[in-house]
């Protein structure tokens, strides 16, 4: 009786595995959340879970399956982009800590074979939106000049502004927030 039950379990398990491995799926290897077919809220929220496309219930993805399907894919992941932040004083000049950040940026650039650097200016929500785009661009240009003066060598240097549309600290409109007045250097 017991052997029969085991036999059935093996058959069912084999059928389930065969069914799974033949279908498209998405999984979370780390923190994250994923929605299928525009559903809200996202169905996939827990590390190690997967969901078959066109299906509804998440399942636990075995380490074996994950390795078989994604080992090469994960191995091809390039060095992750680095972000460095410079805070600005009220007069728009970089603060005392800026010099150390500049050195970190230069070192990060030297570590890469093909460094692409983007300098992004940000503002708080005080003032008109269009004016803040210009203020952000001026801040970014000032930092780009500082980096070049310190010997930045890169394949591509982009200077841009997100104005008040990419806040570090969420605030309502027309709010002074020094932490949002910043320049971000993205190295990738």
């Amino acid at each position, binding site marked *: 009786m017991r052997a029969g039950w085991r036999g059935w379990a093996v058959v069912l398990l084999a059928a389930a595995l065969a069914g799974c491995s033949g279908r498209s799926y998405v999984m*979370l290897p780390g*923190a994250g959340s994923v929605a299928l077919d525009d559903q809200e809220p996202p169905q996939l929220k827990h590390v190690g879970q997967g969901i078959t496309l066109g299906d509804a219930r998440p399942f636990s993805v075995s380490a074996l399956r994950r390795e078989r399907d994604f080992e090469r894919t994960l191995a091809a992941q390039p060095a992750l982009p680095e972000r460095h932040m410079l805070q600005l004083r009220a007069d728009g000049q970089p603060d005392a800590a800026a010099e150390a950040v500049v050195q970190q940026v230069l070192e990060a650039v030297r570590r890469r074979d093909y460094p692409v650097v983007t300098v992004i200016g940000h503002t708080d929500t005080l003032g008109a939106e269009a004016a803040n785009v210009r203020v952000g661009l001026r801040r970014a240009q000032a930092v780009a000049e500082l980096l070049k003066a310190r010997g930045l060598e890169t394949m591509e240097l982009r200077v841009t502004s997100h104005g008040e549309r990419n806040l570090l600290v969420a605030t309502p409109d027309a709010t002074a927030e020094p932490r949002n007045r910043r320049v971000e250097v993205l190295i990738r």
Partner: protein
Amino acid sequence: MNDPHLKLLRCVAGLPALWLATAAATDLPEPSGHVARVEGAAYVSSRGYTNAARVGQAIIPGVTLSTGEGGALGVILSDGSVLSFGPHSELVLDDYRFAPAEDQLRFDARLQRGTLNLLGGDIARLAPGAIAVDTPDGRVRLHGGQMLLKVVE
């Protein structure tokens, strides 16, 4: 040398060059990102031309990224999103725009086959769910973090 006719001639002669430069600038959109890692058979197809992928190569909207037998590819986009592909994969980047100041955050791609590892950048943070990857079996939206996607033909 100060002949005004000569000056005019120089000026007019310079015009086609200026026009060409402007035409080239409008024809080629600003790169959305670049190739950051290549292993074996990996290709970038754009405007009907397919080339072996090179590290540093620009990625623009409309591009098809693919890998063959034993190939793998890694790409970084301008919002800091990172993509990598295993062998026998193909992805079309239909639309990509990262311009928060203009309220434009778009990332629409199609994974036709193979495997994709995707770490969401600023687009996922500023507009959760804006990163959409269509597959023959349905659409997947990344609301944040990292996902692995496999499409079985």
